[in-house]
């Protein structure tokens, strides 16, 4: 262990203090800080950033480093040693009382770093006992016979929230230049840790909300094969203004697919309300036109003559009756939504002639149903306007391209069809860019029992 003499960053060779050596040292120090900063900024995950903070300090500026950070219930110490740079050891502890005369409480209170020389005063030096918890961490430190301990405050945005403790072995203590480098890197570590903490808190809230707005898991429908794909313009959160839902029971399924005006979180909230409204209404009456009537009326709840519904959505509502031979009987109603397609096994593609007023336009809107029979192997394809309206080098994707594509997938099954449409639209819009509009595709067909 430690047989090779390690040279720390920006430590001039002993006795060489000529100009060129000093210049080289300054350059090396600047390069180290630049590289470390880049690494520290690369992740917004608190745990990853913590480990990287230790990674950039050991062995560059110390033989051992420990970071103390608050947790919900106390503190956590995490340390690494130069001879085992991949082994991060953690230990939980109690929060050091602020205003302590020694140890971390002191640094957390004053926000000032302190350099301490480890005296061989007994079995465990007092300084070590005050700063490093008993067990693996302390044993790890004592094993390298530390000469100096430098405890630095992690201060960012006006708060000292933790500490960084650095140790060096005998004969290799911290010179004042070394302390300056340590202070500099500690400042950057503190900012990175604090940024990651803030991001994680915000991301957690966003994630919990997004999870409730995301497309639902499709139920198990043994008699109905369903392929569904959704791509949100607001990519990372996977939420958007398109929605679909499938519910019911074997033999009799309800399928809903729709598109709320707008994008992102605001639109997603309305999609959640729409799905819940329809599910609630279906409890009493599952006729497709009736579900759209209730959905429309719900958008006017709270609105009055002077202030009409401020939100609009289009939707398709279908009720699918399955037969053991794999044929389907579909009753479908539309609220201003692009017409679905039926893809016959022969490759013939038909538009389903269903129409109706979009929801939110007229309080008293009425919806009509169209009946459509699907033979075994036939499929129905529901999609939002993000599909035909996708923009690529040849202009809009368009219904022509969609019909042609769908015809090629006749008989291949709803999963393959939905996937093919999703891929075609994404490829058409071009790689590297998030889609400009939300895209939802849902295809279904009967299953022979």
């Amino acid at each position, binding site marked *: 262990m430690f047989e090779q003499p390690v040279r720390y960053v920006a430590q001039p060779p002993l006795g060489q203090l000529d100009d060129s050596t000093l210049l080289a040292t300054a350059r090396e120090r600047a390069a180290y800080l630049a590289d470390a900063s880049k*690494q520290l900024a690369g992740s917004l995950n608190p745990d990853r950033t913590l480990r990287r903070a230790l990674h950039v300090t050991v062995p560059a500026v110390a033989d051992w480093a420990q970071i103390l950070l608050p947790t919900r219930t106390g503190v956590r110490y995490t340390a690494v040693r130069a001879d085992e740079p991949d082994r991060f050891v953690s230990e939980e502890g109690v929060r050091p009382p602020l205003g302590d005369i020694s140890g971390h409480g002191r640094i957390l209170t004053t926000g000032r770093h302190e350099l301490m020389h480890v005296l061989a005063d007994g079995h465990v030096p007092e300084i070590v006992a005050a700063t490093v918890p008993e067990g693996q961490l302390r044993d790890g430190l004592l094993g390298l016979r530390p000469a100096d301990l430098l405890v630095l405050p992690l201060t960012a945005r006006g708060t000292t929230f933790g500490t960084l403790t650095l140790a060096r072995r005998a004969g290799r203590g911290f010179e004042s230049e070394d302390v300056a480098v340590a202070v500099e890197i500690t400042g950057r570590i503190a900012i990175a840790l604090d940024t990651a903490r803030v991001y994680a808190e915000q*991301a957690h809230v966003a994630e919990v909300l997004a999870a409730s707005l995301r497309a639902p898991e499709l139920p198990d429908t043994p008699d109905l094969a369903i392929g569904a794909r959704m791509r949100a313009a607001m990519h990372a959160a996977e939420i958007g203004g398109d929605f679909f839902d499938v519910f019911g029971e074997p033999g009799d399924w309800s399928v809903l697919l729709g598109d709320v005006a707008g994008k992102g979180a605001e639109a997603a909230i309305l999609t959640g309300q729409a799905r819940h409204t329809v599910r609630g209404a279906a409890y009493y009456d599952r006729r497709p036109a009736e579900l759209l009537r209730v959905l429309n009326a719900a958008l006017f709840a709270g609105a009055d003559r002077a202030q009409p519904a401020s939100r609009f959505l289009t939707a398709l509502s279908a009720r699918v009756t399955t037969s053991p031979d794999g044929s389907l009987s579909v009753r479908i109603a539309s609220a201003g939504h692009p017409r679905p397609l039926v893809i016959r096994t022969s490759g013939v593609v038909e538009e389903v002639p269903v129409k109706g007023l979009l929801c939110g336009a007229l309080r008293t809107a009425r919806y009509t149903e169209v009946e459509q029979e699907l033979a075994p192997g036939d499929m129905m394809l529901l999609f939002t306007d993000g599909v035909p309206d996708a923009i690529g080098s040849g202009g809009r994707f368009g219904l022509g391209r969609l019909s042609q594509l769908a015809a090629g997938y006749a008989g*291949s099954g709803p999963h393959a069809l939905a996937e093919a449409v999703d*891929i075609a639209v994404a490829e058409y819009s071009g790689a590297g860019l998030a889609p400009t509009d939300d895209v939802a595709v849902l295809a279904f067909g009967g299953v022979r029992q």
Partner: protein
Amino acid sequence: MTYVSDEARENFIKALDAADRRLAVELVSELLDDGVDPLDLLLDLIAPAQQVVGERWQSGEYSVAQEHAATAVSEAAVGTVGAWIPEPEHPLGYAVVACAEREWHALAARIVTESLRHLGWRTTYLGASTPAHHLAGYLHRLDPDVVAVSCSMPAALPAARRIIEAASEAGIPTLAGGRAFGTGPSRALALGASGWAASPRDAAGVLAELRPIVEPVPALAHAGADEQAELLLRNRELAARVLKEWLAALEGIGADCLAGLDAEADYAVDHALHALAAALLTDDVTVLVEGREWLTTLLAARGCHADAVPRLWTVLSRVAGSQLPVASKLLDQAAA
């Protein structure tokens, strides 16, 4: 110990051939009940069958739609095996499995995901075609120990490099795998991956060797990388010119085999350019050699003149190679 029998293999391929989801799922369920190891099912039953599907498409036996239908059935079978594998109680680590952008062949990545889980890793599968900025968002949130990137088409190798950049910037090591990375680690390492595995079976050993924290990969500075950027920038224009001149050259030798096969012709040119770009980026001529072989099989199966691919090469050298010296050299080497 029960192994996957030839009979099971045949039956599974029959299920794919008939696009019979239920038959495939039943077959896999029965084998699981009989005590066949889930890893064997994934790697010795489903993966090879899927390879047959790919070959059948390449040879013209399957249409694109049939290939997709068969793949959807394989997906369902992988899902069944996946549902069988329990979450590891004391995971060896946490892996996020991603397909590079424009990589739509997601089945391999799903197989990797379930295999790693069976080998004791906690896994998250991100689906087909994951853009790097999307991945970065996941990494902040999930902080995996490794990002496994799957790549089956050379067209996706440049995007795989982006995944590697995104992960390493976050300090996370990457494991590369899939057909497009070839049969050795050189391409993966050229792109900056931390490790490469020939199959999920080998992945466990490679994963155990990875460093927990990696440093951001340096920018690719070789001349080929510069030319790849140029190729990317001018892709549309080059593709159009190559296609036009190639079709003219074919007509000149009386081989209008691609008449009426617009999609195939487009596809062939696209594939050749992507293979060239990937060869430039990885500084590896074998990517281009494989691309050329692949195209030769594809076009031969569609009744094309034996000179179709050599003519395409001549056009490529003239159009793309004239201003790009490294590309020109690679094209010559791949034709030799």
